[in-house]
């Protein structure tokens, strides 16, 4: 929100700075100007860099301190400052830093965060700077940080995240469904959901979330044209999905509070057995065991519902700031933290999956040991091999809200599904052109 190129205003700011310096003792720790480094990563790996992660400190402090130590030992003369930001407000934080030229050298991002940064010329093109590392990663993962309409790849793939769908076997049985044959496709899901709500007289909902862009993707709706210039989820297939959801909503097979649900609130609903199915991760099993023993006895685990045969996954990436003064060290560190060995050791700490070639064949992801955790992990690792990040890279936070609100209107009956999706697509297209 600024006009720094305006010389008059800069001068005024400088005068203000001088005035303040007189009034207050300064302990400024300003970083250098915007003058950038180079895209050449072949020089000597040295100097001080800053690495920013996204809400990982609370649980993985010692892991990251170990990674930083290892890097500094491997490359004497380097120093890595690790900073972690809270989950909430991460996009605000990055955009303020990006706008002001204070983005750290190496930044943990997701594809939708990379896209605007790359367009603004702030993300280093790794095809050019680090193309030699491409073969170390799963091809799909490497591509996930490419942006339609732009050449290049703008972040190293880091960890992948996917999870199974949990379901409540008792509720399935009560409704006369075969608890050992949970639905696999959307049609099966809709049938089961309608039966569940009918048998329970509307007391038991099957789903607690309204359809998101990933649901449209898994349903087989084409989301965007190839060039990345316009959205297409208002086609017949998209309308069909939304109509079906409307039917579920009216039959109370989709929870009445779904329109305003958060991941926490849906998790609680599943925990209290008010909802029959909920997506989750391997971490959740321990929680069920502790907090809801009766649910845990009846827990069923099944792959995500999909019509395309491919699950959805989320991809995390690590990008390098083009303005870094230490390009070689920044690229080296971004690679170091995402290489096979480190991804593997990180995966063993938490239920995520490495994006490096061959890592998923590790016995850790293939060999049963009889525990629930392992069972979930192996199933998920298998699906992650073919999984897709359905969310288009260009689908911004504002567009997600557009879709969410349009879906909400359709479910409430304020707009027809066709109308609602047309509006959503129009608004998203407009946002796309303006971005």
């Amino acid at each position, binding site marked *: *929100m600024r006009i720094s190129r305006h010389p008059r205003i800069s001068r005024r700011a400088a005068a203000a700075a001088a005035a303040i310096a007189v009034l207050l003792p300064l302990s400024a720790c300003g970083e250098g100007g915007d003058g950038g480094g180079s895209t050449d990563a072949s020089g000597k790996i040295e100097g001080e860099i800053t690495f920013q992660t996204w809400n990982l400190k609370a649980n993985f402090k010692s892991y990251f301190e170990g990674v930083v130590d290892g890097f500094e030992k491997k490359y004497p003369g380097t120093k890595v400052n690790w900073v972690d930001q809270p989950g909430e407000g991460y*996009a605000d934080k990055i955009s303020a830093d990006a706008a002001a030229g204070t983005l750290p050298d190496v930044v943990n991002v997701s594809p939708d965060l990379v896209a605007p940064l790359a367009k603004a010329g702030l993300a280093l093109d790794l095809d050019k700077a680090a193309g030699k590392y491409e073969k170390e990663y799963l091809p799909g993962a490497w591509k996930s940080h490419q942006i339609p309409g732009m050449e290049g790849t703008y972040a190293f793939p880091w960890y992948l995240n996917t999870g199974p769908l949990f379901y409540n076997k008792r509720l399935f049985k009560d409704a006369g469904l075969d608890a050992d044959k949970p639905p696999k496709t959307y049609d099966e899901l809709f049938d089961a959901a309608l039966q569940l709500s009918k048998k329970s007289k509307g007391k038991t909902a099957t789903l607690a979330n309204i359809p998101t862009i990933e649901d449209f993707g898994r349903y087989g709706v084409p989301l965007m044209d190839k060039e990345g210039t316009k959205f297409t989820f208002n086609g017949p297939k998209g309308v069909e999905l939304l109509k079906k959801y409307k039917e579920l909503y009216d039959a109370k097979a989709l929870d009445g*509070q779904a329109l305003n649900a*958060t991941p926490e609130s849906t998790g*609680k609903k599943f925990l209290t057995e008010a909802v029959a199915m909920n997506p989750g991760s391997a971490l959740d099993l321990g929680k069920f065991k502790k907090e809801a023993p009766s649910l845990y006895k009846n827990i069923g685990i099944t792959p995500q519902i999909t019509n395309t045969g491919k699950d959805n996954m989320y991809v995390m990436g690590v990008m390098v700031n083009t303005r870094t003064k230490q390009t070689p060290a920044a690229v080296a560190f971004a690679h170091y933290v995402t290489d096979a060995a480190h991804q593997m050791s990180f995966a063993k700490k938490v239920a995520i999956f490495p994006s490096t070639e061959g890592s998923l064949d590790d016995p850790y992801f293939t060999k049963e040991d009889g525990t629930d955790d392992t069972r979930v992990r192996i199933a998920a690792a298998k699906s992650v091999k073919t999984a897709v990040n359905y969310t288009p890279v260009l689908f911004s936070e*504002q567009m997600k809200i557009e879709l969410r609100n349009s879906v909400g209107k359709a*479910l409430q009956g304020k707009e027809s599904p066709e109308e609602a999706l047309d509006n959503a697509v129009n608004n998203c297209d407009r946002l796309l052109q303006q*971005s």
Partner: protein
Amino acid sequence: MKSSSAVTAPRTAATASRAVTDGPRKRIRRQLPSSPWLFAAPGLLIVGIFILYPFVSTLINSFTDKRTLIPGEFVGLDNFRELLHDDMFWIGLRNSTLYILGVVPALVLLPLLLAMLVQKHIPGITFFRSAFYTPVVASIVVVGLIWVWMLDERGLVNAVLEAVGVGSVGFLSDQWLLLLSAMTVTVWKGLGYYMIIYLAALANVPRELHEAAAVDGAGAVRRFLTVTVPAVRSTMVLVAALSSVAAFKVFSEVYLMAGPNGGPAGEDTTLVMLVQRVGTGLTGRVGYASAISVVVFVVTVALMLLVLRADRKEDA
């Protein structure tokens, strides 16, 4: 600070502006010529650099199509024209206006009754006064978390409602109940603040008026209407001004309870929430968000002037 608590830490313009006219007496006037500005300088500097200068750049931005990472070009009144056709803007305007209608009458009346309750000096009254002020002291984020937990489907309020047989109410899922819940929180948090203002005003009501009315045989209700209300009327105007300006700028309560999305289908979005949603993030439309900010600013100034005018008539 940038406390986003809207109604509860009101920006008291009215408190100050009245006395602009009855300036200092002339006898205190010969002093070091530089000293007045020296006294005011730190305040003017801070407010100028960190509030007004950013606001002026916001004003300039509202005529551009600037985005977070892309410098904008001058687009004239395009942003304001777009506002007229933006459904979300009208929803925001509706909700911010509804907020005034819902919150202001409650905040004008309830704290007055509360002030009358704690006015009498009975033992322990200082404790009650302090206790009633506690919600004002607590941060809005904490207050939000507390009430989300209270009004949760399985929170305290619903547990009580279920225990007495009413059944669970979806305070946090229905669009209107959500707005109502947020208003309740705003009122709850603001009661103590305005109670104090009324308490100060009640101390100024001459007791003879009450006695005369009592002699006339007026009942409590009648005395309230014929003695108390007229005596504190100008304070009621002040409270109405403060609370309506704050209500129009409401952000935190609704954001915390309805979520960043603004409730079901975004129907609970307020104008300031829209500013935040449209203008922040890496793909934020800074220019357009600035235009909404400008509208909020203009309406707030208008509200202020309106009330000040009513107040001036009162004094006359």
